[in-house]
Structures are given as structure tokens and as C-alpha cells.
């Protein structure tokens, strides 16, 4: 795989900063009472999404989860549609029907982000089958968490994906916890083995990558994408990362050992990429510029109209 050009890396850096700022903004407007329900934030996980999505083409499909803000923004969703969705407005990406858990844009290939753990894994496998059956140069990219690797849907989908050589790439964003439980407390594995090791049960390719390093993530996803398209089957990628915030809005993260968060912050994905491309000095400028965009978009989004029950009714069934 050829490494991404400097300009591309620069755009990733901007994207990651944008995601960070947008997530912080979501917190802020949440505290202002503008966000109904709860939110699952992804500060700290920016590299896993930006690096992975950077390896995709416009035709590829994405399957995300309730913790999917970074995927939406990395894939290019406009900020106003993003915030408006989270605020439940008609002008949101999903007309206000999805909310924080379901911020997708089908025109960008984002085909779903269910709230039910594991539910997306078979769905992505099915999309990958469409690509395979049609012989298209296209994959389905499936993101999910470490906790999702213990539910039945994971097993059923990975078996069929491998059996049928679905053009899917599975990416575990291992952020160390499923809600308040460290993954090793819920996930039986051989001593020291990564979760990605589970792929061997199906004879599936797998790899572990530093999820804080966008370039490293990009590389393994690009490779996995090529294998999938070549008919060599899916890959189970484990990107090791961390969520700076608690699981959801109400979680202060008290279950974390002291120092853990700080240690991970030392390996902040934005800092790592900035360093790598020699742009550390520019981060603050970029932040400032993007902060303005974020603030403006959120403010505009907050003026969006509410959806009506009639509109909602119209979304249930296709004609």
C-alpha cells in the first residue's frame, strides 16, 4: 500500500481536530439542555475512525454504532446536519429521527448505526455480500466495540462472512471498556491474546493496530480492504484506543484505575499525527479556525424546526 500523501495527512489532522471540537461542543450543548436523551462521545478515538475511513472509497459502505459521531464526521457529514440531528431537529441528518445514536448519511454510504450491540455486524456482512455478488470494487466497513465481541451476532456474522468471503472489514474499536466493565473481565481469551485473536476461530485474517495512530490504522484497513475485494475474505482488525469521556453522559468513569486516562492522553491521536507530519505548531491555529465553524454550525442547528408527527409517520414505511 502506498502511504498517504502529506496533504492527505494534513486533512486528517484537521478532521480529527474537528471531531474533537465537535464532541466537546456536543457536551456543551448537552449541558445547555439542547440535546435530548443521552450521548456516547468518542474523544480519544478520532484516529481509529479517520484512519480507517481514509482508506475507503466513496462507494464503500459504513456500518457504525451509537458511538458513531466520529465516523459521521470523518466520512464528511456537514456540521449543521450533524448537530441538528443530535438536537432532534428536522434539519438533522436523519430528520431528527435518529439522534445522537443514529447520525448517518446514506448518500455517504453510511447505512446504519443500531443501538443494539452487535446488530450491525451481520448487516455489514450482508452489504459486503452485495458487493461480492455484484463483483464490485467496494466493501462494507463495520465498526463496533470490544464489548460487542461477546454477543451471538458477532459469532454468527463472522462465520458467514468468512465462509462466503463477504467483502467486509471488521474493525473493533477497543476502547478498553464496555460501559463500566474492562474488556478482560467480560472477554475470555488466551492469556495476553488480543480480542482480534477470535478471528482464528473462523480461519479469518486478523490484526492488532495502534488505534491512536491514524496512519497505522489506515495501513491495516487499506490492506484489509484490498484482501476483501480480492476475494480473500474479511479481516478482523482491533484498533487499541481509549475514550476520554465516560460511557455516556451520566458516567463519570469512576471505574478507571488512577492514572489510566492520563497515560492515554499522553498518546493523544491528534498529537501523534501532528507530530508525525511536523504540524504540532499549527494545531492551535487549526483549532481556532475550526472552533468558529463548529460554534456557528451548532448555533444554526439550534434554530432548526422540530419534526412533526406526520413527518415521522412518513419515515416508517417506504412507498
Amino acid at each position, binding site marked *: 500500500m502506498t502511504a498517504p500523501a502529506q496533504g492527505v495527512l494534513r486533512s486528517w489532522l484537521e478532521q480529527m481536530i474537528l471531531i474533537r471540537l465537535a464532541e466537546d461542543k456536543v457536551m456543551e450543548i448537552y449541558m445547555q439542555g439542547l440535546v435530548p436523551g443521552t450521548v456516547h462521545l468518542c474523544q480519544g478515538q478520532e484516529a481509529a475512525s479517520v484512519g480507517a475511513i481514509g482508506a475507503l472509497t466513496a462507494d464503500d459502505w459504513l456500518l457504525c454504532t451509537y458511538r458513531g459521531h466520529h465516523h459521521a464526521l470523518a466520512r464528511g457529514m456537514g456540521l449543521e446536519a450533524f448537530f441538528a440531528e443530535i438536537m432532534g431537529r428536522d434539519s438533522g441528518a436523519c430528520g431528527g429521527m435518529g439522534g445522537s445514536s443514529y447520525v448517518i448519511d446514506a448518500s455517504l454510504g453510511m447505512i446504519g448505526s443500531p443501538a443494539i450491540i452487535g446488530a450491525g455486524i451481520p448487516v455489514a456482512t450482508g452489504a459486503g455480500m452485495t458487493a461480492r455478488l455484484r463483483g464490485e470494487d467496494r466493501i462494507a466497513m463495520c465498526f463496533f466495540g470490544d464489548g460487542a465481541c461477546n454477543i451471538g451476532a458477532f459469532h454468527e456474522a463472522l462465520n458467514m462472512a468468512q*465462509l462466503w468471503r463477504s467483502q467486509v472489514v471488521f474493525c473493533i474499536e477497543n476502547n478498553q471498556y464496555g460501559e463500566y466493565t474492562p474488556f478482560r473481565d467480560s472477554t475470555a481469551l488466551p492469556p495476553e491474546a488480543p480480542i482480534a485473536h477470535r478471528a482464528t476461530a473462523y480461519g479469518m485474517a486478523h490484526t492488532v493496530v495502534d488505534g491512536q495512530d491514524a496512519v497505522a490504522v489506515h495501513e491495516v484497513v487499506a490492506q484489509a480492504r484490498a484482501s476483501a475485494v480480492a476475494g480473500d475474505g474479511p479481516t478482523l482488525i482491533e484498533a487499541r484506543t481509549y475514550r476520554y469521556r465516560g460511557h455516556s453522559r451520566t458516567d463519570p468513569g469512576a471505574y478507571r484505575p488512577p492514572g489510566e486516562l492520563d497515560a492515554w492522553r499522553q498518546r493523544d491521536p491528534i498529537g501523534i499525527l501532528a507530530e508525525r507530519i511536523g504540524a504540532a505548531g499549527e494545531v492551535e491555529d487549526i483549532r481556532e479556525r475550526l472552533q468558529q465553524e463548529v460554534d456557528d454550525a451548532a448555533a444554526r442547528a439550534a434554530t432548526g424546526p422540530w419534526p412533526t408527527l406526520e413527518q415521522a409517520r412518513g419515515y*416508517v*414505511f417506504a412507498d
Partner: protein
Amino acid sequence: MSSPTESSPPSPAGAEVITYREAIRLALDDAMAADETVLLLGEDIAKAGGPFKTTVGLYEKYGAGRVFDTPIAENGFCGIALGMALTGLRPVTEIMFSDFLPTAFDAIAMELPRWRFMSGGQTSAPVTVRASGGGGGRFGAQTSSTGESWFLQFYGLKVAAAGSPQGAYGLLRAAIAHNNPVVVFDHKAMHLRKGPVVRGDDQLAEVGKAVVVRPGSDVTVVASLLMVHRSLEAAEELAEEGIDVEVIDVSWLRPLDMATVAESVARTGRLVIAEEQYHDGGWGSAIISRLATSGSALAAPPVAVSMPEVLISHSPPLEDAMIPSAARIADAVRSVRA
């Protein structure tokens, strides 16, 4: 027991007399011929032609890219079907016995019907889930449920149930052509029952439309699946007693065709539900409740002929005592006439 076709109406033009099972197979075949995006997923349905022979020859005809033998993983392959549907295909999944549906409830009841809505209408999920249910085969507690009403509370799913070979053909064709998820139930004990079937791309059942399979003026019987046949048998018997029964094959449990039922009941003033299921939480109670809340005036309280509240055993006398018979339906009709 009357012979399979005895109580069927005279065959319409262009009808072939075929089994219910063959009607399912031909619906799949014709749908696959009409639309190359239609494909099938299920256990042992490809090379072996299906445990109920509803896919015999389709693997040979359409190939490995259209007919898939799946692992035993119902939730997984129904979720896969959803992913295929979101990306332009039109999959049909076969759930061998209705009792296996619970293993796939997340995909069928929680994902399929809500997926499009959450996206604000950006996506659609034209998946058909087929399941064979029902008792009479002495299969016991975990392989005899009709399952027909299990999804009623999961708004967003449409649910059909085939009460005749024509229904088996037309409902399945309609489901496959429909742009939303549909679950189509058939009844195992009807698989070898024959009836006239008119095939063709213009023979799709209308979504949400019940079928008056026997017009009558005295009492309305609303039935599904095997109970349609038993109701027709009861009607024949009652005709000899001078009671003219109208039998409605409800055909769609979601949405319920209350217009057809209400119109019939407005004429007859009397209602019997014939259902191979428990009453609470079923489509029969939905009909009765909807009539009650709409203030329909009945000449007598409605009667539901349902399964008694026991589980099904494989022991023949018990199964026979549980599944409503033509005799029980006839008695119910007499009782609302009394």
C-alpha cells in the same frame, strides 16, 4: 376429513391445481425470474431443496449466487439479509419452523422494522422472512407454534399468513415485491393440501387486504392459516343446518383489514374468530377489541375459538384437543346464533 380441494371454490381461469408447498416454491421461482435482485437464504435450501421442499430446483436454476445454504444462525442470516436489502438486493430468508424465530428476534423484530425510520427514511429494508409453523404434525412443544402473532407489537413489520395455495403464492409474491420488511407465515399441515393457483406477475396479493373466501349472511368467521380450511369445513356442515357462514381469510395480521371485517360483521351481526394460537396478544383479540372500541353493535358477543392455555405436546390426543377443530368452530357459530 374432507379431501383437500373439496371446499375450494371453482377454479378461476388460468388456475393450476397444485399443492400449497408447490405454490410457495413457484412464488419464489417466479419472483426470482421477475427480479434478479431476489435471492434466498436458509438452512438446507440450496443443494437439498429445503427441509419442506419449498426450494427444490431453484439452486440448480438460479445458481449459488442466488440460493444460499446458511449455517444454523437465524439471527445472523436475517441480519445479513437486512444488509443485502439496504444495498439493493431483495432477500428472502427461510426460517424452517416458526419456533426458531425467537433466536432471530433481534434482527427481525428490532432491526428490520426500525432501521429505515431511524435514518429518517434514507434507507429501506425490503426483506421477506418466511416461516413454517403450526401443529398437527405431532412435533411437540418447540416445533408446533404458528407464531403468527408474535410480531404484532413490533410496529414497522408487516405480517402475512397464507390460508390457501393461492394465498401462499400471492402473499409471498406481494411480500417480496414490497419495499418494506414482511414476515410471511405458512402452515406445515397445509403443505400437501391442493388448490387452484393462478400464477403471474399480476397475481400479487394486495398488502393489507383480507379475502372473503366464502360469502355468507348469518355469521362472520375470521380465520388464518389452517383455520381457514377448518372454518370452510365448518361452514359446509352448517350450511346443511341452514346457517350461512361468511369465512374471511384474514391474510394480513399487520396491517389488519378492519374494513373488510367490519363490513362483514355489519351485515351478519355475529363474529367468530378461529385461531391456532392463544387468544391474549393475538390478532383475534386485536380484531375483537378494535370492533368493541369502534362501537360496532353485535347481535351476540363474539366468540374466539383459540388454543386452550396449555403447551403443545406431541401426544396425538392432546394435540387434537388443542388445535381448534371444524367441530369446535361450528359449535361456536351455533352459539353466536343462539
